[in-house]
Each structure stands twice: as structure tokens, then as C-alpha cells.
């Protein structure tokens, strides 16, 4: 095998995330490329959650496939929820003691899903128990089922490590790791290495987990062999990072010189602030190189306004949020626009409207981020397509904010925030820190909003005297309602966007992945990049020449480049791919270029776009459909 896709499912809080980390570290250490997405309910303990991964021996994958080849179930709900997620001929690891469970024994499962399954089971002749379901997938879907007795294993281990069985039960996720590691032939020393990394400060945990994993590992290979062994990896890396989207943005902010971050807790943004806070003291070889204030505020309004206050003293400041939080921040956004304050807002989109699907993904906030707040003022909106882009874009967000003295909204989404990937360590040699017209000392009278230049010199609070106001102001920053002044100030602010449009290379704002003779143009933005890029290869194998236009900045919009690209393709061969209902990026393209994209593939059920469903959808579009709504994912 060259690649393996798998799902590990279980109740929230049962150690899934730890299992995923141990496996990811071990597989990365074995030289493979991995991407893992975590799907979960807005719940702390008990609701169904799962890790969905793709491991590859030939590439660093950027998307997931569905259905998968391996499912490991910590509980019986996983079997019910995911039996359809398994390919014919796949492998199912499960607890044999759950065989008597039925749908009625599953209070954590949503009634609508149960009803859907009940009618499906009726058609398939399944009586609603795990036992008959297992029989079905074994006989009809030719799935290799691997029943393990979790209770027995735990009992056996608790004797070995002298731990009460009740406590040993906490290690049930290690049974699954042991089984997967055995089937995949992951070297035991790599698992041990991962355990040591994960639990460096808790030696007894390393020991206990190791005992269980090894025991299950041995049992599994004795009976099933290395059934899911991947080929030796062809990837030739010597080091890799294993990071989530939240992690890379935190790293980007730290490298980019962030000194003040404020936030109000919200999924899926809050982890980023936690990571930054763990680096509040920046030390290298015992030498202080800086420090970062991270503050949890009383609400999102205080998060953005305090960060704006901090920027006025010259520090790089930001806040991170998601839709419901950004809704509250909008008043602050307008003030920053009026006062040319270089605030960076990291915006992780999730399923809306309102609180929507708090833990599920979406790209539904593009139009909101572009138009939020009353009146007109410049803003820069950039959107990252993958983890590496997110890292560099984070640094650039601060540069652009300071160069153009304007708010910058950095759009990301839940899919990126919560997916963990293997990633090359970024190279910082061409990374710059540009502080724009920031001045340290001022001589003579200072005008914060000097009209003699399109972008005024920016002195900071503490260096001289200046005024700011949310009302229209004169050059000194005092309230001024004079009509002529109003017109000059208004124009000055908005023309900064024109300057940014002239200065920021369009190649930086939009990328084309493809070749001269492509016939099909896929258009997308944000985290759909990964799955679209993988799709190009598959289409190419089928003899379909397709390229991908990836938009990375929506304000200022790279109109010229996009227009030229779109004009090269036949109208019916241009397809927008987006995680929203309206095809919002296509709307923005229409506004900016006059070209209307007529075909789209969209998904708005909160789950990521999977590779195989996208390929199928594009084929359907090429056969004449105008719009395909993707629906995969439990």
C-alpha cells in the first residue's frame, strides 16, 4: 500500500486526541506524510467525535478521502455512525463486548441519525444491533473485522502494571493505537519515542501506555500480520513539523513580532491564544528576546478595542476570533479604519449563522469580512489556503497593517484550525518585517493625519502629542465636520487601498496552479486549496486538463490577473469550489471583474470537502450540471 486513510472514533473526552498525536508522531517519525482532521460536537464529554487521517508514503497529503480503509472504534456509536464510511474490503477494529448494543442503547446519538439508520438497516436486513451490523459488513462488504475484548485487555494490563481496573480503563485508547500500530507495522521504538514526547513529564503514563500498546500490538500481528503495512516512504525529509492551523498562526504571530494579543474564548480560535501565551517569555539560550502580553478579556469588544489601544503605542497587536466574536468586534473595526490603526484580526470561520455549528467548518464569512461595519473605509482581507500559507500570511498581515495603516482581516477556517499536518519547517530567510511610516521621534508640531502624504507618518503614544477620535477629524486628530476636510480625509483613507492595490504584486494575491493548455478552470480560496490541488492530479490521470486559480487576497482584489485568467477559459469550463451556499468568492469575482461564474461545487454541511466527492462532482459539472452540493461526512 502507498496510502492509507483511517478513522478513529469514540466519545469526546476518551483520549482520541492523544491517540491521534501518538500515531501522527510515530508515522511522521517513520517518514510518512500525514494529514488529520478532527470532527467533534460542541460538547466536552460523551458526544461522538473522530479523527480522520490520510497517511502517505509518496507525498505530504493535503486532503482527505472518504470512505476510508480502516476504522478503529472506541465505542459502539462509532460503528453505527461510520460503517458506511468504510470501503469494501476495509478493516474494522472494535470492542467485541459492544456486539449486544443496539441503536436504542445510544443516547448520545442524534435521533435524526438513528432514524436514518433504522430505515437503512431495514433495507439491508440488519436488526439494529452491532452484532448484525458486523455480520453485514463482514459478509456483504467483505470487511476484515478485528474484534478485541477491551475489558479483558484492560484487566490483564491492570494486573501487570498494578493499577486498579477502573483507572486502567482510562487507557482504552491505547488499545486502538496498539492495534493500528501492529497492522501498519509501525516500529515499537517510534511509538515509544512518541509517548516520551507526549508525556515527557509523566513517566508512569509512558510506561502504562507502552505496556498496553505492546501487548495489543503482539496479539494483533500474531493473528492478522502486518495487514495494513505501507511501503517504505519515498519522502526524503530529515525534519518535519507536526502542527495544527492554530499552531502555525501562533508561530507566525510570534515570528512577526506580535507583542499584544487579546481574545475572548471561542471555538475554533482560542487554542491559538493559548499557544501564544505559552511563549509569553521569548527566550533563546537564556537570552530574553521579548515578551508577549496575552489577555483574556471580558468580551470580544474589549478584545479588539484593547488591541487597538495597544497598536497606538506602536506594538504589533492582534485578536483572534470566529464569526460570533467578529460580529461584536465590528464597532472596533470601524474605529480602527477611521483612525488608521494597524490592527490584525485573525478570523477563523465556522458554521453560522448565529452560533451555528460551533465546532464545524465553513467559509461563509467572506462577504461579512469584506463589508462589516458602517461607512466606507479601507481594509485588507487575506485568506490562507493551507498551513504554510497561514504561517507566512500571518507575518504579512502585520506588515500590510503597518504599511497601509489599516485593519487587516486574516481569514482562516475551522478545517485549517483543527487539522494537524506534517509540514516542512518554514524558511525565514526571505521573511521581512516592514513597519511602514512608523517614526520613533518627532520634532515640531505633529499631525497624525497629515494630508500632505497619502500615508501619514505614524508616531506613537508616548513620543509626542496627538489626538484620535471616531468622529471625522482634522489633521491633528480633532473632531471636524467641515465638508471640505471631510472629503479630503475620506478620500485619503480610501485611496490607501488604491496604493496597496498598486504596490502589492498580484502574483502575491492570487496563484494559478496549472499549465498553458488547461481546459478546465477550478476557482477557490481558503482551505479548499488542498483538496482542489489533489483533485487536479486525479483529473489529469483521467486525461482532463484542469488548473486551479487560488485567491489569497480579497481586498485589494487582484482584478487584472483574475480577469485575464477567467477570459482564457470557456464559460462552461469555469467552476467555483466553495464551502458556502452562495459561492461568495464567485460573487466577489463578479463585482470586481464583471465575469459571472456559472458553475459551482459547494458544501455547507459543516464537514470538509473530500477528494473523491470533489472529483465526482467535477465530472458531473463537465457532463452539464450547473451546481453540485456535496454531502459526504457523518
Amino acid at each position: 500500500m502507498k496510502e492509507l486513510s483511517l478513522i478513529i472514533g469514540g466519545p469526546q473526552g476518551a483520549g482520541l486526541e492523544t491517540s491521534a498525536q501518538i500515531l501522527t508522531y510515530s508515522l511522521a517519525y517513520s517518514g510518512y506524510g500525514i494529514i488529520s482532521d478532527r470532527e467533534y460536537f460542541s460538547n466536552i464529554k460523551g458526544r461522538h467525535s473522530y479523527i480522520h487521517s490520510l497517511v502517505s508514503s509518496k507525498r505530504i497529503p493535503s486532503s482527505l478521502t472518504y470512505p476510508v480503509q480502516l476504522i478503529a472504534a472506541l465505542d459502539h456509536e462509532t460503528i453505527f455512525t461510520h460503517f458506511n464510511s468504510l470501503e469494501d474490503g476495509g478493516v474494522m477494529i472494535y470492542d467485541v463486548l459492544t456486539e449486544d448494543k443496539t441503536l436504542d442503547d445510544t443516547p448520545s446519538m442524534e435521533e435524526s441519525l438513528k432514524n436514518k439508520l433504522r430505515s437503512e438497516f431495514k433495507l439491508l436486513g440488519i436488526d439494529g444491533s452491532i452484532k448484525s451490523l458486523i455480520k453485514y459488513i463482514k459478509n456483504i462488504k467483505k470487511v476484515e473485522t478485528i474484534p478485541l475484548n477491551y475489558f479483558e485487555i484492560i484487566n490483564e494490563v491492570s494486573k501487570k502494571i498494578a493499577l486498579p481496573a477502573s483507572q486502567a480503563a482510562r487507557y482504552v485508547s491505547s488499545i486502538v493505537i496498539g492495534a493500528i500500530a501492529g497492522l501498519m507495522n509501525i516500529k515499537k521504538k517510534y511509538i515509544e519515542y512518541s509517548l516520551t514526547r507526549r508525556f515527557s513529564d509523566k513517566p508512569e503514563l509512558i510506561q502504562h501506555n507502552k505496556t498496553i500498546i505492546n501487548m495489543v500490538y503482539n496479539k494483533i500481528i500474531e493473528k492478522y500480520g502486518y495487514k495494513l503495512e505501507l511501503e517504505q516512504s519515498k519522502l526524503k525529509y530529515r525534519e518535519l513539523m507536526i502542527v495544527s492551523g492554530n499552531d502555525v498562526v501562533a508561530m507566525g504571530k510570534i515570528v512577526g513580532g506580535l507583542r499584544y494579543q487579546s481574545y475572548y474564548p471561542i471555538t475554533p480560535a482560542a487554542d491559538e491564544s493559548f499557544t501564544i501565551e505559552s511563549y509569553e517569555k521569548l527566550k533563546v539560550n537564556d537570552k530574553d528576546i521579548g515578551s508577549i502580553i496575552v489577555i483574556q478579556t471580558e468580551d470580544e469588544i474589549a478584545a479588539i478595542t484593547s488591541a487597538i489601544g495597544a497598536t497606538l503605542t506602536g506594538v504589533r497587536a492582534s485578536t483572534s476570533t470566529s464569526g460570533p466574536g467578529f460580529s461584536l468586534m465590528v464597532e472596533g473595526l470601524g474605529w480602527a479604519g477611521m483612525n488608521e490603526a494597524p490592527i490584525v484580526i485573525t478570523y477563523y470561520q465556522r458554521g453560522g449563522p448565529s452560533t451555528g455549528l460551533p465546532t464545524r467548518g465553513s467559509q461563509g464569512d467572506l462577504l461579512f469580512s469584506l463589508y462589516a461595519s458602517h461607512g466606507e473605509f479601507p481594509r485588507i482581507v487575506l485568506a490562507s489556503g493551507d498551513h504554510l500559507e497561514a504561517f507566512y500570511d500571518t507575518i504579512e498581515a502585520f506588515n500590510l497593517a503597518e504599511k497601509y495603516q489599516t485593519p487587516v482581516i486574516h481569514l482562516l477556517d475551522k478545517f485549517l484550525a483543527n487539522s494537524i499536518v506534517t509540514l516542512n519547517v518554514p524558511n525565514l530567510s526571505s521573511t521581512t518585517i516592514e513597519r511602514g511610516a512608523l517614526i520613533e521621534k518627532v520634532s515640531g508640531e505633529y499631525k497624525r493625519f497629515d494630508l500632505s502624504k497619502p500615508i501619514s507618518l505614524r508616531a506613537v503614544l508616548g513620543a509626542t502629542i496627538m489626538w484620535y477620535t471616531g468622529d471625522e477629524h482634522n489633521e491633528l486628530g480633532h473632531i471636524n465636520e467641515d465638508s471640505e476636510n471631510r472629503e479630503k480625509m475620506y478620500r485619503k483613507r480610501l485611496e490607501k487601498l488604491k496604493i496597496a492595490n498598486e504596490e502589492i504584486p498580484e502574483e502575491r494575491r492570487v496563484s494559478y496552479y496549472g499549465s498553458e493548455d488547461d481546459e478546465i478552470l477550478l476557482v477557490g480560496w481558503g482551505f479548499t486549496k488542498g483538496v482542489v490541488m489533489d483533485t487536479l492530479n486525479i483529473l489529469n490521470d483521467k486525461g482532463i486538463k484542469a488548473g486551479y486559480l487560488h485567491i489569497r487576497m480579497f481586498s485589494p482584489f487582484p482584478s487584472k490577473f483574475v480577469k485575464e485568467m477567467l477570459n482564457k477559459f470557456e464559460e462552461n469550463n469555469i467552476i467555483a469550489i466553495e464551502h458556502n451556499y452562495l459561492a461568495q468568492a464567485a460573487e466577489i469575482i463578479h463585482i470586481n471583474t464583471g465575469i459571472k461564474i456559472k458553475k459551482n461545487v459547494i458544501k455547507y454541511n459543516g464537514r470538509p470537502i473530500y477528494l473523491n466527492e470533489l472529483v465526482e462532482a467535477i465530472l458531473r459539472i463537465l457532463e452539464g450540471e450547473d451546481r453540485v452540493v456535496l454531502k459526504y461526512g457523518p
Partner: protein
Amino acid sequence: MARKLTDYQSDVWVDWCPGCGNFGILASMYRALSELDLKPEETIIVSGIGCSGKTPHFIKVNGVHTLHGRAIPFAMGIKLANPKLTVIINSGDGDLLGIGAGHFVALGRRNIDLTIILHDNTVYGLTKGQASPTLKRKLKPKALPKPNIQDAVNPIALALASGYTFIARGYSMMVDHLKELIKKSIQHKGAALVDVLQPCVTYDNIHTIEYYKKRVYKLEDSDWNPIVDKPEEREEKIIKAWIKSQEYDEKIPIGVFYQDPYIDSFEERINERINTYLENPPAKQKIEQNGKPIINNETFRKIFNQYIIKIE
């Protein structure tokens, strides 16, 4: 050479209504700033919205006139990024105790070294006289069509409950007295509130100069001692100050209600964690060298070592 009072006056015409109580606050501000000889470039007045919101424009130090209710978080960001600055909030009762009440409470919890001069006139002046959170129930200032149906919040009691470590009340027509309170509040290390009774001559026909003249008396003229002299006294002093804060109607005390010098300021709490914070705060740090991040490839690997897997 010490700065003069006039050095703190800006050129902007003060467009409050003639006779507005805010003039007394402004006069007290000029005097307090000049007597403390505060450096204009290192002093910031932050305000919200309303008549009080315009205050920073009239004073020749840095002025940040922000959003309705948000003066406190703006001020917090400024102060925490650069704790060497003196940051004073001048804002109204509607602003700080209505729309901004959450921030008002949060400041007490944090005890950031910020000073609030609360322009307290019981009405929303700039939107033509609606009831503010400090207007008592059943009162009907002339702009209201019906008597006020909501109860009043007591700023002194709320500040006590929130954790402010300096709490005082002044009266805008007693400029010298108010000036002393403002000076003390600025000099206090921690969250400070000066609730300033300030007649709105246009919309509030109840709380007039006559009204206050009959009721206002100075706490220092009695045997009142607001200061927590040792931490063990805190509880007793809070209770006493609370009781005093309820004297709110027929007789109105002004002066310092409560002062506790023993609670760590937020800046000190940060310094406990980041021990270089006070001497080298964020605003004083360098983040680049010759246009490059100070974190280069080598330091990146050192800092983020825990994310990197090396394969031998």
C-alpha cells in the same frame, strides 16, 4: 521648569452648553495635570461617547476619543502595552455604567493602574436627555415623557464590589476639592474611580446646583478614614465604605470613600510572570533587525523545538 496650567489647554473651542458642569471637571483636570507636572507626551486621556467624550480634545496631552462604552478597554490596551504612560479615562455615566458596565467591572477585577473620572449627570446629554443608569427611579427630568421606571446603579458601591482600590466622589462645582481627588486618583497605583456629580444644565432640572448645594458635604470634615492601613482591615473598611455609599439622597458625601494600597496592580501581576515586563514593556521592544524578524531560522528551531520531529 514646571509646566503651567495653560500649557495643558488645547486650542479647541469647548462646545459644551454654557454653565455645563463639565467645565468644572475640565478646570480641575488642568489644575491636577499641571500640579502633578505630568509630561503631555506621556499622558493619555481616553474617553467614550457623549458630551464627556469630547474632553480629550480640550486638553493638550494625548487624546483618544473612542467608542460608546469602550474607553476602558482602549485604555487597558494602551496601558498594558506601555505601563510607563499615565492613562486617565474621562467619560460619562451612560458610557461607563450603561453600555460599558462589563468593562467597568472587569477593570476592578484587574486593578490596572488606570484612573476614571466619571462625569455623572444622570442623563444622556448629547442625545437629548434620556435617563442614564445613575438616574433614580420615579424621577422625571424634563426631557423624559414618563418618570424613570428603572432603578439607579450606585457607582461607588459598584466599584467597591468590583475591586477598585481607590474610590472617591467629587462635585464639579467644587473645583479645588475635585482637583485634589483627581491628583490622588492619578497618584494611586491601581484602578481608581472618581465619581463626579456634574449638573446637566440643559436636561436635568432636578440635580441642579441648588439641589447639590443643600446636600453635598465633605467626608474629610468628619472623622472618616478611607485608607486600608493594613491588609487585615480590608473587610471592615469595605463594609464601612459600602454603608457610606448608601448615603445617596438627602445628604451626599464627597471625598475619598476607600483606598487600598495593598492589592497588586495588574502590571505587577504580569511582572510576576514576565519578570522583564515593567522595565522592558512591549512598546519598548525591538521586533526586527535590518528589516528581518529577530527570530531567524536557528532561533525558530530552538523556540518551537517541541513541534519539530528530527529523523536520524
